[in-house]
């Protein structure tokens, strides 16, 4: 048994897992407040990464500045999507809501391919050292930064929902829209905010992944990979999203280890999470932390 490889894969899994967790969190945020399943989450990563890449290549400005500009753009995009496209969907059946986000995802994916091409593009170098050694393991600097950013985002989310006025309003809206509205909360603004935050945070994740692997269409796979994480953690639980993301990240790396060392079936890295997804849906569809659906007649 190759212990070193196993540990390396576990570390990678944890880091990728936190990224899944962040994306899943954004997904859950939208689902909680607007009851919309966003199939275009992966495209937020893609758009964010490409826009940041474009700004960095086009203008001679520092990374932090480009990063902030990109976030502003994503905020506008999120609000625009909510106002123009998802608002008319309120009250429509589930299939329409799902399909409209799928339509958006196809549109954005093709548009990004059209504008930026299909070849992966390397990100301009942000850090001088490419990788550092921690406890005898090679870890890329960008991964450490991604870990740090993810943790900051998670703490930020916790603070936002516990103490800030807007966060409390969002929680109230998620709990009961009508009551929230009659207490003077602008539900429209809450909806727009949740899309804006979700788009911004996803874009951060996209930029981080882009820095490590280069920016390419492959980024949008995150949008599909995130489903097992969400179902595992529970569709409407933010903590569940983080835990689910971590578990799926570690699990797919473990699957790759077992596959590569013993089974040699191939492609288990991509497929294993979906088997988990089906099993979870069979035995516990509300996931680890989600609220159980109780039906009244």
């Amino acid at each position, binding site marked *: 048994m190759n212990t070193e490889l196993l540990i390396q894969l576990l570390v990678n899994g944890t880091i990728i897992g936190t990224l899944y967790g962040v994306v899943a969190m954004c997904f859950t945020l939208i689902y909680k407040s607007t009851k919309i*399943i966003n199939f275009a989450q992966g495209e937020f990563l893609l758009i964010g990464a490409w826009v940041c890449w474009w700004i960095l290549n086009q203008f001679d400005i520092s990374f932090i500045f480009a990063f902030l500009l990109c976030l502003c753009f994503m905020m506008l995009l999120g609000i625009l999507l909510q106002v123009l*496209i998802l608002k*008319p*969907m309120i009250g*429509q059946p*589930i*299939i*329409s809501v*799902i*399909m*409209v986000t*799928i*339509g*958006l*995802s*196809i*549109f*954005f*994916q*093709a*548009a990004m*391919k*059209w504008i930026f091409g299909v070849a992966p593009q390397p990100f301009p170098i942000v850090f001088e050292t490419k990788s550092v050694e921690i406890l005898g393991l090679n870890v890329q600097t960008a991964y450490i930064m991604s870990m740090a950013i993810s943790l900051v985002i998670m703490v930020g989310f916790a603070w936002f929902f516990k103490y800030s006025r807007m966060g409390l309003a969002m929680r109230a809206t998620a709990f009961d829209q009508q009551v929230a509205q009659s207490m003077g909360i602008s539900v429209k603004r809450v909806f727009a905010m949740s899309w804006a935050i979700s788009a911004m945070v996803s874009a951060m994740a996209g930029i981080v992944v882009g820095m490590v692997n280069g920016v390419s269409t492959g980024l949008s796979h995150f949008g*599909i990979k995130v*489903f*097992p994480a969400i*179902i595992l953690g529970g*569709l409407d639980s933010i903590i569940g999203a983080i835990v689910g993301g971590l578990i799926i990240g570690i699990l797919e790396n473990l699957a790759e280890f077992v596959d590569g060392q013993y089974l040699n*079936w*191939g*492609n288990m890295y*991509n*497929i294993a999470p*979906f*088997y988990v*997804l*089906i099993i979870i*849906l*069979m035995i516990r*569809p509300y996931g680890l932390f989600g609220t159980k659906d109780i*039906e009244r*007649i």
Partner: protein
Amino acid sequence: MSGSEMLPCGDFRTSYKADSTIFSTKWIRMSAVLTIVGCLFIPFIFDLYVLNLMIQIAYLGIAALGLNILVGFTGQISLGHSAFFGVGAFASAYMNNQWGIPVFLAIPLAGLWTTAAGMIVGIPAGRIKGLYLAIATLAGQIIIQDFFSRAGWFTGGAYGALAEPVTIFGYVFDTDERFFYIALFYLVIMYVLGTNLMRTRDGRAFIAVRDHYLSAEIMGVNLTKYRIMSFGISSFYAGVGGALFAHYLGFVSVESFDLLLSIQFLSMIIIGGLGSVSGALLGTVFMVLLPEVMEFGVSLLATTTWGDIPAITEGLAYIKEMSIGLAIVLFLIFEPEGLAHRWSLIKSYWKLYPFSY
């Protein structure tokens, strides 16, 4: 074909038979028969390009009707329809190549094979619904696609499988002109079956499950049975469509049956109209013609001086893909009831012409 058509004044239905009739007047029945007879002459009139599009419409339309039975009539969302389309294609090619079953028989048998596959997937799906079902079928699509690339004995793996042309009594349907009749035959049969299914007890049960599953259960509709049955029927349609696809192209490869095709099937029924038999066909026509229209538009742009830039002429594939996404979004916002609804509006506008109130 649907019961929501406008009736002439004074025509009241007095029996259940009259209420559930497919053709409400003699004229409609005659024109339907005449349309089918007219279709028989299509290969003599149009060129290969049009014929190819029509055959595409036929096999995709059959599969789309299956999806409409599942999504539009029973209300079960499936993101994995192209996987079943693929099962049908591979099953038909496999039965013909390995067991020597004649192709004409292999096509409906492939439908039955796919029905079995669909019902197996449908058993877990009988327990979950709505969003969860959509996500579960998405996982199913990915898993079955992975199975295709693994199961070399069944699909030929990365090389794909060869499919023989249809042969009846030594007569080979290998050109587009000849295959058109096979496709038309199946299209008519499957659509007549589909329309009739919705008039039966089972069809009404499907609609009851969609409209309010709790009420349906209280009325005595067995939810699990009808959900699984709906999956089975929809897979049968997908299987027949897929088998036609295989024997038309003569070659089936693993890559054809991806998530994008599933989404295209869904967009066909949404654009055509959920819960409408004729809508499935209308939507298929729209989705098959959309890329062609885009190609035409791009070639028109290329003749102008400002439109003849590489960004447009070389980006044709992406423009086609974007147009699919855009069509879905625009239809859902502006015409959520689909083309079938729009068509009936146009018809009633002309019927009532000067006095539309």
